[in-house]
Structure formats: structure tokens, C-alpha cells
């Protein structure tokens, strides 16, 4: 008994000594808390991206001779450039759809609904199910004689057989990104002071005028964030075009997948990865210029000085 309590107090002293040690060394304390996650993110996220940059300039394996051929092969191939163009077009179309539908939904929920929490939950929940499963659901719906066609038949309408077409890809993307894109729209709309809208109306502006000159400009940052959250993952996607797009809707992500899963040309795949990254970085810089706050806790973070 006595021995154990001695041992206990010895351990207690030890702990006291350790905490005293850290208390007198705030830098070390910060290092112990922030260091491990920092190390993990740098080692397993940042460094891999740098390795990709390095590999993209090599011929076959790491340590081999340097070359620009991966980039020149990509940028001089009409096939690949067409794929990039097609990817860009699809991504912009999806972003436009999300902007209209997502904003309309967020606006309707914030301004006209009392059951906000329930509705928000209904919107977000599908996001948390498997991406592939959600695409599979749309295969069932869109394929010829699928749910959509059967339903149209019931009303005596002709079948459309949308699967493996561009509309199918657009529907699929809208379906997966809508729940995510809506969150920043919603957040910026809830932060908007309703008095401003009242003021605008009191001054004689109709609802449309109020929307275009007060609501939309005031929620611009949320809109930009939502659109970035739509455009970037669409631009890099391969699952949706693979499952819903058929052979006429090749996107750049599919070309990368192909390099790693069947062609086994890793440096070429890395170079395409870099091309996508450049587009993404350019977009982020543009978005930051226009005020979309993607790393936004800074204003709210409030660490004590």
C-alpha cells in the first residue's frame, strides 16, 4: 500500500516536473501540439505533390534522366488538348448549374423557411453516402428502359435514354456537388443582415433590384467559395464521366487514371496531374483576388495575442 502510494506520488512528481518544464518553454509546448499534425501533412500530403512535380520531368522512373517530353507530348497532342477543352466546358457548365440551383435553394431556405435545420440536413445527408453509389443510382435512372424512361412511358412520353451522354454527366456532377456547394451559399446568406434588404425595399427597390444590388454583392464571397468547391473537383473527376459519360465524354481525370491503371506511364500521368494543378492554382489565385475566402478562419480564429 505504502509502496504503491509512494510510487504514485513519484509519478505525480514526474508529471509535475514535465508540465513545469513545458510551461516554462512555450515554444516547445507549441511544437509538441502543432508539430505532429504539421509533420504528417507535410510528409504525406505536401511532399507527395512535390514528388509528382519531380517525376513529371523524368522519363521512366525516379532517378532517371530529366526530360520535358511528358509535357511536350501532352501539349502538342490534339487529342489531349481536345480532352482538356471538353473538361473545361463540362466543368463550367456544372458550375453554372450549381450557381443557379444552389443559390436559389440556399436563398429559399434562408429567406422563406422556418425549418432550416431539417432542410439543411436533408440537403447535406446525400453528400455523406458513397460517391460511386450515387453515380450508380443515376445509372439505374438514366439508362434506356431505366427509371426515367419507364416513368416517361407511363405518361405516354417517348423514352430519352440519357445514359452515356453529356446531359447525364452534368446531372451526375450537379447531384454530387450541390450539397457541398450549398453550404457556403447558405453561410453567407445567413450572415447577411436582413435589415439591409428591408432598407432596400423601403427605398423603393423591388425584389429583383434588391437581389442584384444588395443580396448578391453582399454574399459574393460565399458564392465564389461554393463555385470553387464545384469547379475544381469537377475538373479533376474521372468517376462520373467514366460511369455516366460513355466514350464521347472523356475528361482529363480519366486520362490520368488510364496512365496509372492500364498504360502504366507514371511520369506522363504525373505531368497531367501537374497540368490540372496549374489550372487549380490559377483559379484559386483568381478567386482570392475576387474575395472568395477558402482558408477563411483567419478572421474568426481569434488566437490570443
Amino acid at each position, binding site marked *: 500500500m505504502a509502496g504503491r502510494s509512494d510510487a504514485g506520488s513519484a509519478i505525480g512528481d514526474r508529471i*509535475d516536473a514535465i508540465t*513545469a518544464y*513545458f*510551461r516554462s518553454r512555450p515554444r516547445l509546448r507549441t511544437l509538441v*501540439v502543432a508539430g*505532429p*499534425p*504539421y509533420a504528417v*501533412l*507535410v510528409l*504525406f*500530403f505536401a511532399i*507527395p*505533390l512535390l*514528388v*509528382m512535380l519531380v*517525376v513529371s520531368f523524368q522519363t521512366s*522512373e525516379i532517378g532517371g534522366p530529366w526530360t520535358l517530353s511528358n509535357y511536350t507530348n501532352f501539349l502538342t497532342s490534339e487529342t489531349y488538348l481536345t480532352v482538356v477543352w471538353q473538361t473545361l466546358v463540362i466543368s463550367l457548365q456544372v458550375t453554372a448549374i450549381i450557381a443557379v440551383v444552389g443559390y*436559389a*435553394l440556399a436563398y*429559399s431556405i434562408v*429567406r422563406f*423557411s422556418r425549418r432550416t435545420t431539417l432542410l*439543411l*440536413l*436533408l440537403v447535406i445527408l446525400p453528400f*455523406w*453516402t*458513397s460517391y*460511386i*453509389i450515387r453515380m*450508380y*443510382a*443515376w445509372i*439505374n*435512372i438514366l439508362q434506356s428502359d431505366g*427509371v426515367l424512361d419507364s416513368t416517361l412511358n407511363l405518361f405516354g412520353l417517348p423514352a430519352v435514354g440519357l445514359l452515356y451522354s453529356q446531359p447525364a454527366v452534368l446531372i451526375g456532377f450537379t447531384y454530387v456537388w*450541390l450539397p457541398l456547394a450549398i453550404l*457556403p451559399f*447558405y*453561410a*453567407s446568406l445567413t450572415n447577411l443582415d436582413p435589415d439591409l434588404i428591408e432598407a432596400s425595399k423601403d427605398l423603393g427597390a*423591388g*425584389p429583383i433590384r434588391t437581389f442584384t444590388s444588395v443580396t448578391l454583392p453582399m454574399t459574393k464571397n460565399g458564392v465564389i467559395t461554393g463555385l470553387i*468547391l464545384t469547379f475544381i*473537383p469537377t475538373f*479533376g473527376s*474521372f468517376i462520373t464521366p467514366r460511369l455516366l459519360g460513355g466514350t464521347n465524354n472523356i475528361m482529363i*481525370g480519366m486520362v*490520368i487514371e488510364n496512365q*496509372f491503371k492500364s498504360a502504366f506511364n507514371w511520369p506522363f500521368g504525373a505531368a497531367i*496531374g501537374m497540368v490540372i494543378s496549374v489550372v*487549380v492554382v490559377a483559379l484559386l489565385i483568381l478567386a482570392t483576388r475576387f474575395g472568395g*475566402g*477558402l*482558408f477563411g*478562419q483567419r478572421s*474568426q480564429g481569434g488566437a*490570443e*495575442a
Partner: protein
Amino acid sequence: MSALSSLSAAVERTVHTHAARMATAVIALVIAFLWIPIAVLVFMSFAAGGVLSFPPEQLTLEWYRVFLTNDAAIDAIVTTITISVPATIITVTLSTMIAYAIDRYVFPGRDWLQMLATLPIIVPLVVTGVAMVLFFNGTLGLPEYVSVVVAHVIRTIPFATLVILPTFLTFDRRLEEASKDLGADELRTFWQVTLPNIFPGIVAGGLLAFTLSFNEFVYTYFVKGSGDPTLPVYIWNQIRYNVTPEVNVISVVFLVVAVTMVLVAVSLTRVDLLTRQ
């Protein structure tokens, strides 16, 4: 000109009168768009004819029986869980440390830490997936299991941090002051005052991290070699090469996991925390 302005006035009036009704219609349509595919999956899992027939002539539990006796599918679920559970524990620990550091300390590189913890959401999955396969499998030669767990940790950190950080920000700091005034040091204050208060947020972050990891496909698909497939990889192979009606049942499994986890997570925090920027 006056015709135009009177027209615009008419439009403004119409919008004003019907705004509430239009809003209800928008909400109803979008919710239907989001939930009909899910309803279709659930419904199809009971369809006797299998995948290609709609509407089904007969309802059956046959595919559930097939699923439960299919060792490949059950193995895939077990494989997924043996990856998701350790990944979730690591993620929650790291995300709590990130949130604590960002909320409490001022240090050089604080903004960078926050950016690094957000970036995996923004960088396209396929890009990070490629980078990971090059570094983990190519440079480091990590064992497949380790690569996949690490990939899942990177995938889930941003979301867990996004959920845990607000609980730190809204936590009443005076409780900690009181604890320290009473003589407790920082570590003891953390264990006895801070942690119990932010625990719901941490559990919520963990549940969402688990859900995300359970669904994770892109990183896993790239990083993973020829070993046992996770459930999403298994279902990808099924859909691409031989669709069986069993896929509908697996969809329902995914759905049940997601709905349960998210509802518990939401009940522990508040939905609007998820929308904080």
C-alpha cells in the same frame, strides 16, 4: 423606355407576390432531386427482377440473402473497417491538435498549418491520389495497408478539423481561466475542463471522418495494389465489370452507415457548425 420600366415593375410585383410559393417549389424540387435516386436504390434492393427492371414485378429479400452469404462482399466490409477505424482514431487526434494549436497558440506557420489542413479538400482527389502513389509506393515503398491508412488520414483531416475547430472557438474560455486560477496546469486543464466540453465536437468529427473513410474511393483506388478491395473499390469493380442485383443491397449498407453516423454527429453538435466558413 416607359414600356420597359412598367414591364420590369410588373415583373418585380409578380416576384414579390409569389416569392414564398416559388421558394417552396425550389426547395421541394431540389429535395426531390437529391432523394429520388436514393429512394430508387432502396426500392431496387427489394426488386425480384434484379437491376435492369423498373418497376419491379415482385418484392423480395433474396438479394439481402445473397449479399450476406457472399464472402467477397463481407470481406470487403471487414477490410474497409480495418482501415477506417485506425484512420479515424489518428485523424481525430491530429485534428484536435490542429484545432487546439490554431485556436490557442500564435506561432510562425500557423496560417500554413491551417492551409495545409484545408488543401486536401481543394486539390482534386485524382491529383493527390497520383502524388500519393508516386511517393508512398514509388519512393517510400510503404506496405499497402500503411499507404491506404495514411491516405485515409489525409482525406479525412480537413473535414474533422472543420467540425472540431468551431467547438474550440465557441467554447467558453473562462472555464479554463477558472481551472488555471485554481492551480491546474495546462495539461490538467485540458484533460479535466477543455476535453469534456469539446468532446461532443470531437466525437462528431470522428463520426464524419469514419463515414468519409468508409466511402473513400479515389485515394484508395490509386494507392492500393492487388490486395483485398475495400467496399467502395469492390463496388466499383462490380459496376464496371459485372453488375449484380447485390450492388443495390450494398448501396443500402452505405446509406445506413452514412445516415446513422451523420445523424448522431449532428445531434452532438449543430448542423450550422458544418456550414461555418
